Every structure is written in C-alpha cells, then in structure tokens.
C-alpha cells in the first residue's frame, strides 16, 4: 500500500446543544500520503473545518471527538496527553487559516510571533539564533527585506504578506503535515496565485504533506493530488484529482461543477443546485443530499449510501452513480 502520513478512520465530531448532540463530522475516513496534497472541497457547513480542527485536537467546547482514530505516522493523536499533543502541534502538524488579518496578533511584531512557536518547542535557543531562524523562515516564504519585516507589526503588511507570515510561522518548526484551511479565500486573485505557487514550491523543498480545505474548485484542480468532496459532515466522493474532474460520479459533485462559471465555456444559465445545505440539527433521513438531488429515488430517502468503490481509486456514496446507468 501507499505510504500514508496521516490516516483518519471513522472520525465523528459532535457538538452538544439544547436539542441533543449533533454531528458536524459523521464517520469520515481519509488518508494523506507523504509529500502529497489532499484537497477537501465543500460548501459552508459541510464539516471541512471541524474535520481539520479535530485532527489538530482544537475542537472547542461544547464540541468533542466522539469516535474514530487519527493516526500520524502510526501514532494515534487522539490518545495523546495534552502535553504530548502540544508537542505535536507546530512541530509535526501545523495549520494556516483563512483570515490572515485576524490570525496575527496586532500588538506583537512579526518576528516575535514567528519565534514564539520556536521558543515553545526549544526553550534554550538564544535570541540571536531565534532571530536568524525567523529571518530564514521569512526568506523561505519569499518576503522581500526580511530583516526589516522581522521588526514590523502586522498592520504594516498587505494581506498577501500577512498570509506569507502565517505560512512562515506554520513552517518554522518543519512540520510533516500542513493543514491549510481556505488559505487564499480572503485574497485577491493575483495574490492567491502567488500564495498557491509558494505552497507548491515549499512542498517540493520540504516534502511535507498538505491538506488543502477550500470551496474553490479551481484551487483544488490546481493543487490537489487527491480530492474528497464533503457534504453535510460526510465524504460523498473521493478520487484522484484527474478522475474527480474528468469523471465526476456523485450528483453533488456534478452540481458543484455545474454551478461554477467557467472561462472556457459559455452557458446561458448556470446549473445551480436547488435549495441549500441542511443544518446539522435537521439532517434528512437516508442520503443527506436527496432533497436537492434530481436523481433521487425512494431508496435514497431511507438508506444512507456508504462510500463504495466505483472505479480504480475512485469512491462515491451514491446508489445511483454513475448516473447514466440509471437514466431512462
């Protein structure tokens, strides 16, 4: 089998509410091979961010991981003590977020924030040594004049520069896995292209694995080796990137592809998906996509379809996939 850095099995993350427990992530199996990029696509509320927080063990009360395993290099992260987990964060798994504006602390310099993680993992490092390492980190993310930037505050940087600082912080301790949660959503398209380029180069240099969470199919197509499409807390389709775009199976994936306006094609109307994502406290019975699915049949309302292999390395959770097999 392939050499997986991260394996997620049967992960279920629940939140306690007045109306009982609701599952934001409900039985997800995924894996990320070493040095590769897994793209996770889905719309707001599909559970993609809670999934990544679960891997980092950062799900805040009243949420908790109720079931499943998360193994990094064969080591179960969910059974580590808090102190052991703190050691893993930053040094083995790091995360960058969507909002570079709010993820940096405005009252500390860039340099202080980059060296913070280094100090936490290596208490004896000298100040001069930390500064050198931080400036190296800034250089690695192609920030011009890193010596000057080290002493600047976040408000003195543009959005793209701040995201570069976030990446420098995340990579300061050379993690094996980088989780990037919508890293370019808040950025302009030309800056987005710079950041994606940078992430690709850094992956080549360091051999790290990346989990890239996004709602943008263009970004996934550009970056991911394998793609998982999530809907209402579950993975509904999983395939290598080429197969997912070239041979999409799940009706939800089709709906997403039909919804995106394309530069290479002119259509009078976009093929929008009717309705909206159901909230996790009012999930439909059976397949969670069936109320919005044009191919739904009565069975879809009663049974939850499992993720099943449909082609080589390609899985989909749909009774009716591939759809032409059932079309009249």
């Amino acid at each position, binding site marked *: 089998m392939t050499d997986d850095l991260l394996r997620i099995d049967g992960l279920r993350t629940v939140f306690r509410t007045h109306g009982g427990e609701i599952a934001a992530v409900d039985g997800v199996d995924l894996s990320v091979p070493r040095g590769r990029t897994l793209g996770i696509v889905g*719309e*707001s509320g599909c559970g993609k961010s809670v999934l990544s927080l679960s891997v980092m063990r950062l799900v805040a009360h009243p949420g908790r991981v109720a079931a499943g395993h998360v193994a990094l290099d064969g080591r179960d992260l969910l059974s580590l003590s808090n102190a052991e987990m703190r050691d893993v964060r930053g040094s083995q798994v790091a995360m960058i977020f969507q909002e570079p504006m709010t993820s940096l602390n405005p009252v500390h310099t860039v340099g202080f924030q980059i060296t913070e993680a280094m100090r936490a993992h290596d208490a004896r490092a000298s100040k001069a040594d930390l500064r050198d390492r931080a400036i190296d980190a800034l250089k690695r993310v192609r920030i011009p004049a890193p010596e000057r930037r080290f002493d600047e505050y976040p408000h003195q940087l*543009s*959005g*793209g*520069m701040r995201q570069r600082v976030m990446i420098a912080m995340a990579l300061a301790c050379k993690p094996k896995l980088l989780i990037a949660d919508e890293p370019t959503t808040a950025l*302009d*398209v*030309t*800056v*987005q*292209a*710079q950041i*994606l*380029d940078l992430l690709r180069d850094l992956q080549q240099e360091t051999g790290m694995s990346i989990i890239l969470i996004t*709602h*943008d*199919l*263009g*970004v*996934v*197509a*550009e970056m*991911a080796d394998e793609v998982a499409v999530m809907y209402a807390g579950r993975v509904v389709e999983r395939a290598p*990137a*080429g197969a997912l*775009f*070239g*041979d*999409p199976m799940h*009706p939800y994936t*089709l*709906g*997403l*592809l*039909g*919804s*995106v*306006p*394309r*530069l*290479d*094609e*002119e*259509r009078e*109307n*976009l*093929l*929008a*998906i*009717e309705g*909206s*994502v159901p909230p996790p406290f009012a999930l439909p019975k059976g397949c969670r996509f069936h109320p919005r699915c*044009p*191919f739904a049949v009565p069975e879809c309302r009663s049974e939850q379809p499992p993720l099943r292999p449909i082609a080589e390395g390609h899985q989909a959770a749909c009774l009716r996939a*591939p*759809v*032409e097999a059932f*079309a009249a």
Partner: protein
Amino acid sequence: MSEPLLDVTGLAKHYPVREGLILAKQVGTVRAVDGVSFSVKRGETLALVGESGCGKSTTARLVLRLIEPSAGTIRFEGADVTRITGAAQRAMRRRMQIVFQDPYASLNPRLTVADTIAEPMAVHGIGDAASRRKRVEELLSLVGLRSFHAQRYPHEFSGGQRQRIGIARALSVQPDLVVCDEPVSALDVSIQAQVVNLLKDLQRRFGLAYLFIAHDLAVVKHVADRVAVMYLGQIVEIGNKADLFANPRHPYTRALLAAIPHPDPQRRGQVKPLGGDVPSPMNPPPGCRFHTRCPFAQDRCRSEAPALRPMADGHEAACHFAETLPPAGLDFAGGLSEAAARRLALYARARAA
C-alpha cells in the same frame, strides 16, 4: 444609437489624509477614484472588475451619490444629476437601486421581510399599505421566496435567501438601473449560481441595466455585456466582453486572467502569478500606475501616463504598447471532460423534469 441610460465622465473621489488632532493638517490625498468615464445602456450589464482597493465600490457609490464626487459628471438619461438635491434627487434615486455584497449586514434585523421590501415604496410614497402588501407578495415570488416568508425576520434566512430579499427590495420601486456591488461573492458556489441565474432572469424580464461590481472574472464573463477593468482608481481597459476576453490588450487584464485557476487539473501549472502588491493610492506611481508590476514596462511607462485609446476591435486600453505586446497566450479552450458534460446534461434534464 440610443442615448445611454447612465453616462459618467471624469468621475473622481479624493479623500484628504489629515494628521494631528486639533489643527488636522492635510498631509496627503487618497485618490480612490481618479478620472473614470463609462456609460451603461438600457438593459445591458457593465461589469467593473478589479482587485481590492482599485476603487470599484467607491465608483458604484459615487454613481448613486451615496458619497459626493470630488470631480466629474453623472448623467442619467441625458440629464445632469451630479448636483441635484431634494425632491429631484429622490425621484432619481427611485430609478437607481443597489444590491449590497454582504446579505448579513445589509438587512435591518428588526424589520420583517415584508417591511424591508416595502420600505423603499413607503419612502417614495408609492401606493397605500394594501397595495404595497400585494406588491411584496409579487416580489417574493419573483425572487423565488414564498409568501409566508413575509412575516419572518432576516436571521431566519440563509445567505442566499437574504440576498434574494435584498434583490426584491431593490426591485420594489421598479428601477431602471441596479448597482450590484459584489452580490454573489459572499455566497457558496451552489447558491452563487442560483443568485446569478436569478439576476439574469430578472434582467431579461424587466429590461434592467446592471452596473455589476465584481472581482471574479469567471462570474463577470458569465453575466456581463461589457467589462471595465480598474486598477488604482482608473479604468485600464474597457470593451465588449467578447473582445476583451478574446484579446485582452492591457498587461493587467492579462495578469488577472492568467491568475485564475481553472477547474481542470489537466491545465495545472498554467496559473501565472503577478509579482508585487498594489501600490498605495495615496502616492500612486508616476506615469502608468501599473508599471511597478508590469513585465513589459519601459522608460516611457515610468514618466508618461497612458490614456485610454481605441484598439482595432473597438475596445479601449490604456497602455503605450498595447498593439505591440506579444500574444497573451491565454488558453481557455478545454471545457468539461466528455463524461462530466454528459452527466451534467443528464443532471439538467433530470432537474427540469
């Protein structure tokens, strides 16, 4: 040709930058919009595209006179509306409405949907309470909501539904021009497609003109008839959609197009990032404002600002070397794979059934 519905010439908005608490000495000027001219015909969509800080939203607000221009004129159906006030301004405002970007911030949480939609009619003194109630029902069904939604409050709706409420409110007074300020950028992909379809459908039915502000060129290609690309407060290229996308003449337009990742892994690695950041609008670079990031910049670009001038196919670009630039080398061909296209056709058929 027929007279344009909206005609804007030399529009500018300069904000003074002051320092000090008491004397507040002016230390500079932010040129948010700096000499913008365009026109919008009845029933057509002009898209203003550009990155954050290029002045596209300021332009939209200037056109509606939500903020006052520092210079320039705005003509609506030939009449100068740049300085009108009072009743004349109110009458004009009925005919120009706006849909905002953030459907979470642009609806009053204390008003029911019916009150929100009826408010513009009340302001403009259109109809009585009973006829307004009837009109609200019509509008709700027009934007794909149900009549029982009228008595609910904004927090009970999803983002896409709220944007539909915002659209119903804009249409309540039967405007001729609707300014859409990034109307779909806060929405999820599938909802974005619903709202885009709705806007296009309403335009066909009521002959609306749209001034469509956006940063997503793929959305613009889908909705616009004409496109204006803005950079640092100025229009750098403007023209019919087909000409502009087929043959982009300004290096910035090309850079924007080249930066978009395609939803097609086979064309991976074609994205070409543009170096650098947008300079501050407080002291824009001399000469061509794009020269600091332009791969083709020469000495002339650093000293002499290029004017918008017509290209062979009729669209206009503001670049000294627009004719002699190498081919853009942008490849949009491809489209969906055969299997994806076949299944999408089935999807469309099943949905229509």
